[in-house]
């Protein structure tokens, strides 16, 4: 028996672990397979879920004996903190260099954000700055509602802030906040955040249909003639907004710099840099983000009673933000003399460009002539800016409140 356990260590270790961890390992292996399947079908975001599912399945199968009483994997060691154990881990664990040099210091979040900057068009923010910002502020409601609920459920301020940022629906932002404020629970929080963000495609249309009646969803907005926004104006916005926000929120400066720099590069027409960031940085970072999240999903890490609390809080945060965005849409609808389609409000939840696409799709299903994408994209980009402001605020203030 001992010989077989040594020969097939992935199976053998199941019998040497606590039963609840062994059972949870099997659950996670199947969950990883399900993620790959759902990613391949397009039900969940394939860019994240396929590498994550593979990582999750592999890390929970590939457990081996390091010594008679120590089990582990050859993927990564998140607990290596002192120089000696870190150097050992860097030599032994395959993905340790990525974890240490790109994950733990948030480089990966910044690279994803730079890519989002290249994909984003700030022209609609410049056309409708107040409308877009107002909607984005309403669509951040979930974060503020979740924070006191999280504290009431027993989390400390740092953990509550980290899970609240899920309401901003921005993966890199959640990762950034969790790594800084609550590094010991950043894995479950980030996994839950990305899982829920993948599900927005499925859930938000129902929220829209429940809150916005059909005749309003099909509303055609009369557009007054707006002047074109030039590339120079967009770059001016990028550098001014970046400088101003970095000045106010230095802790979030890396994220802000990444986003605005990415956008300025796109607008400046340096196509080689833009292609490099979009095709190489963004997709490399997203791939390793998914893979690392999967690899970090070890049974012992996720077998934390607080994971259930995070699952509940994540749903509250994203749900309330979606509803808040639609309320914002209604507010603009009333302010503008009923010349605004409130469906665009959901795009204030900043998951770029998913939420804007969902809003336009829902409108299109009711009225094929109604186009709200320009308002939705404006709100979407402002959602990113508002999420970055909130992240900077949490990261700056919460450690002071914890003292």
């Amino acid at each position: 028996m001992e010989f077989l356990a040594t020969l097939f260590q992935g199976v053998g270790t199941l019998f040497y672990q606590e039963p609840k961890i062994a059972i949870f390992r099997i659950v996670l292996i199947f969950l990883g397979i399900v993620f790959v399947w759902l990613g391949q079908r397009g039900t969940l975001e394939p860019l994240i879920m396929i590498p994550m599912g593979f990582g999750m399945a592999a890390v929970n199968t590939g457990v081996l004996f390091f010594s008679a009483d120590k089990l582990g994997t050859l993927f990564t060691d998140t607990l290596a903190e002192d120089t000696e154990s870190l150097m050992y881990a860097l030599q032994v664990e395959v993905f340790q260099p990525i974890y240490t040099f790109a994950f733990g210091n948030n480089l990966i979040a910044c690279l994803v954000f730079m890519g989002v900057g290249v994909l984003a068009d700030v022209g609609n923010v410049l056309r409708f700055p107040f409308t877009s910002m107002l909607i984005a502020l309403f669509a951040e409601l979930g974060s503020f509602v979740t924070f006191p609920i999280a504290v009431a459920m027993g989390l400390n301020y740092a953990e509550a802030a980290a899970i609240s940022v899920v309401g901003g629906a921005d993966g890199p932002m959640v990762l950034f906040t969790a790594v800084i404020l609550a590094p010991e629970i950043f894995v479950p929080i980030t996994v839950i955040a990305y899982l829920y963000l993948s599900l927005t495609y499925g859930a938000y249309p129902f929220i829209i249909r429940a809150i916005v009646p059909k005749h309003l969803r099909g509303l055609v907005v009369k557009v007054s003639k707006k002047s074109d926004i030039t590339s120079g104006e967009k770059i001016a916005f990028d550098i001014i907004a970046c400088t101003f926000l970095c000045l106010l929120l230095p802790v979030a400066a890396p994220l802000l710099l990444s986003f605005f720099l990415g956008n300025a590069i796109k607008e400046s027409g340096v196509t080689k840099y833009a292609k490099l960031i979009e095709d190489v940085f963004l997709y490399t970072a997203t791939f390793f983000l998914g893979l690392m999240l999967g690899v970090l999903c070890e049974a012992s890490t996720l077998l934390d009673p607080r994971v259930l609390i995070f699952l509940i809080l994540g749903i509250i945060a994203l749900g309330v933000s979606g509803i808040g965005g639609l309320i914002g849409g209604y507010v603009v609808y009333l302010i503008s003399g009923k010349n605004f389609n409130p469906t665009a409000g959901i795009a204030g939840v900043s998951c770029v460009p998913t939420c804007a696409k969902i809003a336009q799709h829902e409108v299109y299903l009711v009225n094929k002539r109604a186009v709200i994408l320009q308002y939705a994209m404006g709100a979407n980009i402002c959602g990113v800016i508002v999420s970055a402001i909130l992240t900077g605020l949490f990261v700056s203030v919460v450690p002071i409140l914890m003292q």
Partner: protein
Amino acid sequence: MKEIILALEFYLIVIVIAMLVAFIIKGMLVLVRLFTPKQVAGAKDAGNKGK
């Protein structure tokens, strides 16, 4: 109760900063357009005809 007030304070700060950004956008656009020389309407067409 204390946490609700804290969350409201956070919200208020975020609203103020976000609205400042919106004002900066508006002000910047006005300034940029003020200092950008305007092309005379029809000048391009007239130039093309002259060719």
